[in-house]
């Protein structure tokens, strides 16, 4: 019974995260990452991830508690603009805070890291 419940909870989390990315308006989701493929940006993004995101999503993006796993193909293949939109707006409903206080360039650096080398494909 416990296994069934945790499977349902995991499914809900995955759907929730997918839902957050899918809620990005088409115009925002189609925005290109100006730092795509920039190795310095990816490394800076890794540093920012460790600082801003790892406490909830895990040092290796494995997910913790209600914060979903980010090391998965849905995130890697997400449109960069959708990830950027999710970072800017967060989701008060799921407890994901907004990172709008970070300058745009830093949010793109995090997106570069999430979709960069070492991310699951």
């Amino acid at each position, binding site marked *: 019974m416990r296994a069934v419940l945790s499977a349902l909870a995991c499914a809900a989390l995955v759907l929730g995260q997918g839902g957050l990315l899918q809620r990005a308006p088409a115009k925002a989701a189609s925005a290109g990452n100006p730092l795509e493929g920039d190795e310095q940006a990816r490394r800076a993004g890794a540093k920012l991830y460790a600082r801003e995101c790892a*406490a909830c999503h895990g040092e290796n993006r494995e997910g913790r508690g209600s914060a979903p796993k980010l090391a998965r193909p849905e995130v890697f293949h997400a449109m960069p603009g959708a990830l950027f939109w999710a970072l800017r707006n967060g989701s008060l409903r799921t407890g994901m805070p907004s990172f709008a206080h970070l*300058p745009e360039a830093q949010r793109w650096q995090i997106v570069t890291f999430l979709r960069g080398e070492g991310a699951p494909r």
Partner: protein
Amino acid sequence: MLQGRETVKTGGAIITALFLLPRFCAGEGPFFVTYTHRMEEPRNLEMAIQNVTGSPAGGNRFLGTAVELEYGVTGWWTSGFYLDWQSTRGESAFPTGYRWENRFRLLPREHWINPVLYVEFENLNEADRSLLAVVGRDGAEDLAEPVGEARHEKEREFEAKLILSSYYKGWTISENLIAAKNIRREPYEFGYAAGVSRPLALRARAERCNLCPENIQAGMEVYGGLGTHAAFGLHNTSHYVAPTVAWTLANGTTFKVSPGFGITDTSVRRLWRFSVSYEITQFGRAARQLFRGGRP
């Protein structure tokens, strides 16, 4: 015995969690008086000590201190508790009371202008010198009053603020409208605060560093009183202009400093503010694990 060992183990686990998991308090604005719409992240705890010193005309130099604990209850609700203290040269030093503040984010998404409602109850005495807001006709004259006399006057007050703030191309721009009401007497008092700030660099460096320009934010804030509902306006009110700088170390400690310049006759000519703060990420989760006896 076993229970004792378990407690020691979980206590050790939470201490580890407090000092290893949490590391940073990034992006905190450099302001002392002006609030932005940035909320404390859910389950994070911020600890801060804010100080202000000044020498009002006709009075002794004072140091007002506020010890702050701020917690992210949810993504849209941040709650903070302050303990205030004052020390006045040639007079005495003592605690002046407490404040309990709550901030509620009104819109779930980011917009051009983002409103937050702030509600605070304060139970202080008139000797309080922390100057976290200036309202009504607060001025140098109040601060020159001997603290031994002022401490006997209670000041139980509700304060509300409408916080309107925006982020634009790396700039933080914020305006606060303040209304305060003593619960027993005195009219409604009004005030304002506004600030603008920016990090020295918008891109982060790849290396972990203390002196990275993105870790330093500079800005300017202005704040002052707007009289009362019976006599609204700038007449006989105090106003300050204050450049401000915040520097966050790689280990998460943030230092802020701000000289404030009084620009009216009723203002204190110069105020110096300085603070240090530290944020413990996911404090709530670690605390819950402690009480449930699990690992953080």
